[in-house]
């Protein structure tokens, strides 16, 4: 439709101003700030070139937090999508209450993360948590002696919770893709004598490839910037086992119990985070590039 230039500008202006000033501008400024040594919001900045990045490359804690983040992305992602696929198949196998089950599995997505961290802290609590009570009631001594929140275990315990929170969302995306596949494809596969596993890999997966690609990209971006759940799980003194890149950035910038204010360094971590988002999305696009089957 044709419209006056004035109208186009008027309609775009408010959103673009807000988005530009409070989102794009700070995102761009981050690159500049990352080149400074800057130790407090009121203090003056000292230009140090790429030194923050050199320090980052040699910073063990940074690599640890990057490793944790990548674990959530790769290990968490594989489990989330495997479970979401199994559930998609299960819910489409003609069982009753499909919508109700789906709604219950999605439920964690509408609850505040901070409520869920507290909930899981209670589930895992070694002296009176849900798991301990359950294990005691059934006499499972090994399970009741397992310390879910010990330094060695806490990352995996948190990962389980993160998987539980995420599965519902990706289940809904995959199911929407599957619902769009015309019935004839399945009938044809049945006539050809394909079994369920073959049908799944030869019919379902290729036909929802576009939805799957979007879902994997969404999960990856979400995993890379994950902050809230691991940060809040342990209270104010987050152990390094739970550091993600976002958390390490926050702690370098604002500190834990006491402020740190390494603002230039923290921003450099942010730039690395953005770079890893870009790299992961590019890799995924390359890996998942197939000829989309039209139907």
């Amino acid at each position, binding site marked *: *439709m044709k419209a006056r230039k004035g109208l186009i500008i008027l309609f775009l202006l408010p959103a673009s101003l807000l988005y530009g000033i409070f989102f794009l501008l700070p995102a761009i400024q*981050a690159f500049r700030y990352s080149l400074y040594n800057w130790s407090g919001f009121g203090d003056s900045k000292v230009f140090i070139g790429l030194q923050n990045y050199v320090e980052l490359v040699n910073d063990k804690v940074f690599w640890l937090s990057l490793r944790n983040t990548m674990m959530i992305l790769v290990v968490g992602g594989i489990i989330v999508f495997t479970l979401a696929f199994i559930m998609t*198949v299960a819910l489409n196998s003609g069982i009753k209450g499909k919508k109700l089950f789906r709604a219950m599995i999605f439920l964690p997505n*509408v609850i505040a993360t901070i*409520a869920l961290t507290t909930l899981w802290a209670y589930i895992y609590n070694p002296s009176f948590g849900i798991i301990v009570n359950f294990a005691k009631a059934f006499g499972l001594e090994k399970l009741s002696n397992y310390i879910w929140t010990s330094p060695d275990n806490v990352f995996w315990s948190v990962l389980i919770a993160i998987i539980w929170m995420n599965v519902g969302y990706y289940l809904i995306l995959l199911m929407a893709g599957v619902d769009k596949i015309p019935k004839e494809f399945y009938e044809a596969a049945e006539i050809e004598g394909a079994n369920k596993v073959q049908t799944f890999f030869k019919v379902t997966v290729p036909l929802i490839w576009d939805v799957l690609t*979007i879902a994997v990209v969404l999960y990856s971006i979400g995993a890379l910037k994950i*902050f809230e759940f691991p940060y809040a799980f342990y209270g104010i003194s987050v152990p390094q086992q739970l550091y993600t890149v976002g958390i390490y950035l*926050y702690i370098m910038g604002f500190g834990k119990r006491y402020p740190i204010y390494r603002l230039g360094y923290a921003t450099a971590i942010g*730039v690395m985070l953005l770079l890893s988002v*870009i790299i992961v999305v590019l890799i995924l696009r390359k890996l998942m590039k197939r000829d989309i089957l039209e139907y």
Partner: protein
Amino acid sequence: MDTQELNNIKREEAAKKSARKGKRLMWLSRTPSYVFVGIWSLFTVFVILWVGLSSLKSNMQIFKEPWMLPTELHFENFVKAWSVMRFSNYFLNSTLVVLISVVLILVVSAPASYVLSRLKFRGRTLISMIYTAGMGIPYPLLFIPLFVIMASLKLIDNLVGLTIVYVSLSIPFTVYILTGFFSSLPSELEEAAIIDGCKDYQVFTKIMLPLASPGLITAAIFNFIGLWNEYQLALVFINSDENRTISLGLYSLANSMQYTGDWAGLFAGIVIIMVPTIILYIFLSEKMIAGITMGASK
């Protein structure tokens, strides 16, 4: 009755029998499906109910009788959370910030989405791409540069400042949802309206906006739930107790738990934060689920 008829009846009966058997087999083959999604769903509902029930217990009963239903209903947990732990204050802050943010998000995003999805002009693709890029930018990147901007505007530890941050950062996602909605609308109505003498802005306000109202409602629900539950931005931009949103309030309550040991009060806090979004979800879950799938499967 001749033999042929008899045979027909026999055959019908056999068919019925095998159909019944097939049904039973089908049901059996579905058992693993029921077990798998059943356990998962039950677990989710169970832990949330457990917290709900525990919020009505005394601390003593939470420790001593974890499996029992509350023997007396300790509503004083809620009274304590609401007044002594200042949840009334946090609840009010969140309600104000979130409702105003959601309205403003729609007010600025709807016209922009309309222009980007239905009008042809130079630079449209580029502007759309710039908006989409925002969905890939991780919030932690913005923590420090945005803090500097907000500090220079004297809007740190300020609910107006938090509202501005919420509105601005929600724009890319909202524009993404709404452009999807606007582009699915038929174009005949626009043309008819022009012929009838509608001004160009009236085409938007009188024709397109009402038609897009399901999309606006979906965007409003998503932003409401997302911002009500939001916590990392509030953590960065709010310091003082009086300006805390409900997520921050619950976070500080959970932190003080190591000293107080008051789990019952904490559970009451969790219930208070969960209730608004769960109520919304119960009534609007189908709409939300449809909204999620819209973006991904065009």
